[in-house]
């Protein structure tokens, strides 16, 4: 039974974007979980969300919680001490450069000192736990205002202002940041009020807060006088809980001390150490023997000892991590979509999930939209599964016989094993595939997206390969960077005007119905055109010893330690 009086009171105070969401929830189009997630994205306040849930008769345990940030030690844990975190060895080529970093190891180091406008909530999604305490859009979602937290100081004692936000965003726009390219330009942020950063977007975007959150790793706010290429070790700074005290580039070891002036209060721990491991197996061994306290990431294969360890706490943050099997659609042997479809029909996705992840993964359907997202359309396209007859028929229709190709991939996680499975799966339909496993540096530079033109940044990409994509709570980056015409990571060189139109529609939609309509079309286009195949989404695994508490992780490798503590 809906309490219309209460609902109407909230509805009248809401802006058009918020009103649309409230009404969608009231008529049952958006469930409770998605209402909270979406409400957080568009900046609906916690009291308003609570009132709507109460008015709609949702139970008390559905009340959204907002962490206000700050250090909260785990129960019974002793204050003080330090932690050692096994961290992925960062890419030396980018160094600790917040603008140009590209790997999980560096994200984690950088985010100990620098913070995002929008932080991480206790449910693993975005929340007002970082530099912005609230945000709201204008009527059509083309302008977003972020109110900055009061009393935030840089480590040199100067206050954080919207000028720092504006300068950071200018740097990201100039660098054509993967998530913000085409969304903002230089000069997009109005900093006339030092306490409020007002973003005027190049086109409306209903999900914009996610793009300046922890889920767009390079969007950390750096001082106004930083420049692109300045590294954290070269110039330690930040507003975060930890101050970089020492960085050993050769061993990729970063040591931090507590920031006594952090806005969130005093951290329970005195210090933290992030230690680079070039091999996950070695990090797992160190965790098993408790030489380290926290492990940033490990895989199911090789991590069985940790998964079975009663004194080890496994963290599985929400994850859309996936592998993209791309086909170069404008050059080489995969220009005919029938051939691409044939390849996709050979994939035994269940085998991949079982063999590579022991079931800790979700089968995907050749598009990067997670089924748990509110705008996912389950009816859009049928689930593609292994069908060799279909694959052979498509090849025959395309007039292709005995296609021989090389599948390029980097030596990362389960990717070489996935390549092996694809090679075996495809052989039955008549594909003769060779697998070329390269070092990651060589792979990214030479195979995945070698320099092209502004219109076609990955023009010289190899015709067929596997690349890794980390978690994003919404698929915007997967669309705009990897699939849209001229996308900076578009190794498929896919240029489809229908797709681009639907992407614009999706971005501009500020209501869930509008997003779902566009996403449904996108699912259909990608399923039919197959510029890339998406076989699965897999769980991200992190964890820590049972004596440690208060650690949060994201599927992009962040290990949030501001509230962490360790019992004796």
């Amino acid at each position, binding site marked *: 039974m809906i309490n219309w009086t209460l609902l109407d009171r909230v509805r009248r105070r809401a802006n058009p974007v918020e009103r649309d969401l409230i009404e969608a929830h009231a008529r049952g189009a958006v469930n409770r979980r998605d209402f909270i997630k979406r409400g957080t994205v568009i900046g609906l306040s916690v009291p308003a969300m609570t009132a709507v849930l109460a008015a709609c008769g949702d139970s008390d345990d559905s009340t959204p919680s907002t962490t206000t940030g700050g250090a909260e030690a785990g129960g019974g844990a002793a204050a003080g001490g330090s932690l050692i975190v096994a961290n992925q060895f960062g890419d030396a*080529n980018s160094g600790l450069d917040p603008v140009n970093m590209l790997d999980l190891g560096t994200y984690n180091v950088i985010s100990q000192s620098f913070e995002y406008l929008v932080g991480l909530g206790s449910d693993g999604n975005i929340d007002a736990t970082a530099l912005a305490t609230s945000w709201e859009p204008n009527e059509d979602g083309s302008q977003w205002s972020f109110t900055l937290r009061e009393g935030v100081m840089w480590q040199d004692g100067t206050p954080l202002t919207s000028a720092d936000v504006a300068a950071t965003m200018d740097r990201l726009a100039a660098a054509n940041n993967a998530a913000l390219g085409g969304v903002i330009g230089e000069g997009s942020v109005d900093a006339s009020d030092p306490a409020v950063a007002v973003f005027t977007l190049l086109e409306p975007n209903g999900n914009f807060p996610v793009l300046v959150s922890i889920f767009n790793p390079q969007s950390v706010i750096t001082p106004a006088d930083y420049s692109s290429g300045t590294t954290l070790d070269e110039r330690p700074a930040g507003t975060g809980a930890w101050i970089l005290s020492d960085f050993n580039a*050769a061993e990729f070891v970063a040591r931090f001390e507590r920031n006594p002036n952090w806005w969130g209060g005093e951290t329970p721990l005195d210090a933290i150490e992030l230690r680079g491991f070039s091999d996950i197996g070695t990090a797992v*061994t160190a965790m*098993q023997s408790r030489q*380290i306290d926290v492990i940033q990431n490990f895989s199911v294969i090789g991590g069985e000892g940790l998964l079975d360890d009663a004194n080890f706490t496994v963290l599985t943050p929400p994850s859309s991590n996936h592998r993209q099997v791309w086909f170069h659609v404008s050059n080489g042997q995969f220009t005919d979509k029938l051939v691409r479809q044939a390849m996709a029909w050979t994939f035994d996705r269940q085998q991949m999930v079982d063999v590579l992840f022991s079931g800790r993964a979700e089968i995907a359907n050749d598009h990067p939209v997670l089924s748990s997202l509110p705008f996912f359309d389950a009816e859009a396209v049928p689930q593609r599964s292994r069908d060799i007859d279909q694959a052979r028929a498509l090849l025959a229709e395309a007039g292709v016989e005995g296609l021989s190709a090389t599948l390029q991939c980097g030596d990362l996680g389960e990717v070489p094993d996935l390549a092996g499975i694809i090679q075996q799966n495809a052989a039955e339909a008549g594909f003769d595939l060779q697998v070329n496993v390269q070092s990651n*540096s060589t792979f*990214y530079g030479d195979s995945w997206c070698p320099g092209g033109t502004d219109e076609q940044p990955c023009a010289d990409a190899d015709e067929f390969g596997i690349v890794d994509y980390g978690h994003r709570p919404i698929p915007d980056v997967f669309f705009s960077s990897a699939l849209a015409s001229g996308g900076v990571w578009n190794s498929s060189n896919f240029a489809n005007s229908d797709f681009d139109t639907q992407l614009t529609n999706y971005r501009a939609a500020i209501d869930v119905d509008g997003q779902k309509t566009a996403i449904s079309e996108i699912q259909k286009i990608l399923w039919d055109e197959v510029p890339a195949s998406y076989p699965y989404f897999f769980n991200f695994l992190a964890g820590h010893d049972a004596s440690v508490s208060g650690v949060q992780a994201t599927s992009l490798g962040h290990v949030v330690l501001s509230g962490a503590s360790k019992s004796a």
Partner: protein
Amino acid sequence: MLKFIGRRLALSLVTLVILILIIFLLTRVFPSEPARQLAGPFAPQERVDELNQALGLDDPLPTQFGRLLGDVITFSFGESFSQPGEQVADLVRPALWNSAKLVVFALVLTVPLSILGGVVAARRKDTLADRAIVNLGLASASIPEFVSAVILQYVIGVRLGWLPPVWLPGEGAGFFTQLRFLLLPALSIVLVYFGYIARITRAGTITALDSDYTRTAYMKGLNTRSVVRRHVLKNSLQSTVAVTGTQVGYLFGGLVALEIVFNYPGLGNLILRAATAPDFPLLQAAVITVAIIFMLSTLAADLLIAWMNPRARLNVRA
């Protein structure tokens, strides 16, 4: 003897220059463009051209080689390509020191143990003890060091918890703490080299025990211990010294897998990272460092052999 040392040194220097030339040419065979790597995949070609010029990669090969020789003499090597702002020498030096610690510790354990094993096996030739030493040594030597490393790491480090399985001694760790952390990697090396060196020692000792000078020593009335110490070992260990000398260079730069298993920051790890980056100055510096160590250890072994056996000096002179 001085003349002998001079000749060997001169020969070593010539070998070193040839080695540097080979390393220089090999690093130029890499298909990647270092300037493109440094500038990033999306950088404009002008930026790449600027970097090529700034790094001297546009210069003729002889000019670049001459510059490299100068770098070797001063041990400067300039700035790392993959870690801008870091001097190559500052990256190589700690890795070299770490490798030296591991290699010296491993040799301190391996060499006396292997010599003892070899001598015992030779003196008890064709007995159960001889067969046990030879066959166990052969078995352990046939397992690659990184495989025995993983087994030791899991059994001794993780399951039994007797020794730390991963190199994490902490900042400013003391001598004995470091030794404790080094024990498992060093034991992995011992397992491989014990069988190898013990068998060579055994063969040399058997030959020496059968020789005329040993019989003469016994006939002079010396006891077995004196005969072995004064006459047998000095002759039988020449092959052992030669083999150990040549293995030192490998141990410094070739333990890539072992160093990865233990997360040990040695030269092997550094070379691998430099090769995959790719970082030419770092790669050249690290490989040349290993080559110099190889040359020095071989030279030291030759000198030791010459001291043990004057005929070796005569052979060179002849």
